[in-house]
């Protein structure tokens, strides 16, 4: 797929992978609608994108991804402003620090709301629209953390597993309508969300992750690990016996 000139919606664009994806899409001549709660960051990002592009490619749409009822309205506004949407990237995600013996239900619900329910609220209307258009690309930023449950972050693991399964189901449902659904599974990536974490393996950057996302959109990949070596790491991890998983201390 040639993405030049496409109309894109990036949800969770104010920082990290989302912001970098927005920059790189604009670098390919795409129009980008930037969605996030943090309006001032979006405004700065849009100004920077438009300055680099030398034309107005980025527009700001402040919204809380957990305001589920607002999603269709914001999407419609982007459609009205851009004349359509070709690609959506759901990049919103939170990974609050959770103690090894901590069970904070309110915090866990907030993880599910942003990482799973938000994705459903923003991607469902576009899945419907792309089905009618028999065209479109849906990208969800999952995580290698969704491939196995670990003792350190039970609900974050569960949220990324749920997102991956939701995206897989969409992929199976929409491929017959010529719609691509791509699950991105980043490994260790240095972003504001992971600031302060210690990585036992070499960490990727938001820039490199965004470049891999663009490649996945262009190639129509179903699932893409980033950095790429994580595909092999996770192949091993997925096949580790439960007895070993129980011993792992992260």
């Amino acid at each position, binding site marked *: 797929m*040639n993405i030049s000139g496409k109309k894109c919606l990036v949800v969770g664009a104010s920082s990290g992978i989302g912001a970098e994806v927005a920059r790189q899409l604009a670098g390919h001549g795409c129009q980008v609608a930037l969605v996030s709660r943090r309006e001032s960051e979006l405004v700065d990002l849009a100004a920077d994108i438009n300055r680099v592009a030398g034309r107005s490619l980025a527009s700001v749409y402040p919204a809380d991804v957990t305001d589920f009822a607002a999603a269709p309205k914001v999407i419609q506004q982007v459609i*009205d402003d851009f*004349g*359509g949407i070709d690609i959506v990237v759901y990049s919103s995600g939170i990974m609050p620090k959770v103690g090894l013996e901590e069970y904070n239900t309110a915090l866990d619900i907030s993880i599910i709301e942003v990482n799973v329910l938000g994705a459903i609220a923003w991607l469902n209307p576009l899945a419907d*629209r792309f089905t*009618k258009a028999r065209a479109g690309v849906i990208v969800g930023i999952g995580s290698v953390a969704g491939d196995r449950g670990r003792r350190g972050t039970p609900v974050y693991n569960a949220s990324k597993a749920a997102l991956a399964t939701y995206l897989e189901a969409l992929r199976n449902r929409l491929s017959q309508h010529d719609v691509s659904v791509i699950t991105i599974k980043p490994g260790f990536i240095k972003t504001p969300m992971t600031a302060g974490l210690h990585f036992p393996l070499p960490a990727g950057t938001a820039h490199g992750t965004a470049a891999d996302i663009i490649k996945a959109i262009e190639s129509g990949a179903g699932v893409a690990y980033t950095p790429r070596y994580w595909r092999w790491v996770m192949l091993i991890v997925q096949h580790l016996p439960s007895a070993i998983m129980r011993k792992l201390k992260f």
Partner: protein
Amino acid sequence: MSHYCLTPDRLERVDSWGMNRTSLAYVFRPTTAELMAEVFKIAKNNGKSVGLRGAGYSYGDASMNSENILLDLSRMNRIIDWNPETGLISVEPGVTIRQLWQYCIEDGWWPPVVSGTMFVTLGGAAGMNIHGKNNFKAGPIGNHITEFELLTPTGETVVCSRSKNSELFHAAIGGFGMLGVFTRITLQLKKIYSGQLSVEAFATKSFGEIIERFNEREADADYLVGWIDCFATGSELGRGLVHQANYLPAGADPNPAQTLRVKNQELPDTLMGIFPKSSMWRLLQPFSNNLGMKAINYAKYLQGSTIGNNEVVKQAHAQFAFLLDYVPNWKYAYKPGGLVQFQSFVPYDCAEKVFSEQIRLSHKLGIVPYLGVFKRHRPDAFLMTHAVDGFSFALDYPVTQQNKDGLTTLTQIMTRLVLDSGGRHYFAKDSQLTAEAASEYLGKEALAKFTALKSATDPDHLLQTDLSKRLFNAFL
């Protein structure tokens, strides 16, 4: 009270016929003028525009209205009144040419102007003021429309004819759906005395020769159409085949009751009695490349210039008229990129030079049209006319990811040649013109008149299409 409202459920994918553009639109298919009026109200209340669509056979974006409302008129397909004595028929806008000829032919009448496909609607035909292979003799379809009713976006119904609201009559026909919706069209059909035409085919070796032969024959011919092998270059540039057809006079057909039957008009549904035509485009697809099309064009010319050259045969009206329907869905051979048709209308004296240069430029840029069709035209009295006293040349170009930019460059250069010669373009085919080019050939005076009529019939500028936005956004 209707159930009409603007919800995402109304969204449908709408493609250009040439498959090079796609869009989503809120599609409504009303069956009455009252429901149409309601759609205009919904549009106004929701800040949307309304585009009109018949059968969707415009090659470009003339019947598309991305992210807005499309009024699809295909269900408004009733024949309102028919007089087999006079040949006067009143129809709703969604009636197709196929419906029309099949309804009337057994009474000895034929649509006076038809397109190369029978599947277009009369509403679309009037909105584009279509022409046929007899344009030099019969003019466009508008010449045969005696009266119509136009529903304007304000909800008013205006009756127009040459004597009543004449200015609107001459602007709405060919007005590409910008002034209102035809709700009733009255058309004078052509009396025929046989279901067959006398058809002669002959080969021509150059543009110069085809123009000369058209010139010799146009006084006596009822139809003339030329096919050009666009792959031929050098001394053979412009070589092709011409088909001339004439109506049979009264008494010439010994059995008109037989030949006028619909079943004796229908196109064969198999090739050589074996291959189903519905699958024929799949056989064409492997040849849908420069090498394959060069071979097909060469074979067609070779066959036409040897077997059957200068022969006169009898052919049913439908079989002669609807050449584009011989291979159903032939356009699919152009998948996945689709096709662009570039049809230009050039005054008599410049035609040979401009059309020769178009072919030379196509070869120079490496984008050769797979099909070229040549016709004779004459001017008409309609405000937004595409006709000139001269010739038209329609070129079908394949669209690919690789040739897209080159095709834009090519059509821009060719458009310049056309405009410099005093030529014109045709909205039913266009997808490449710029706003500047459209304004240049239409002229300030015609545009000012059209804009004034638009302000009167559609003060809220509800009627728009992707084409109107592309070419006239500033003032329509």
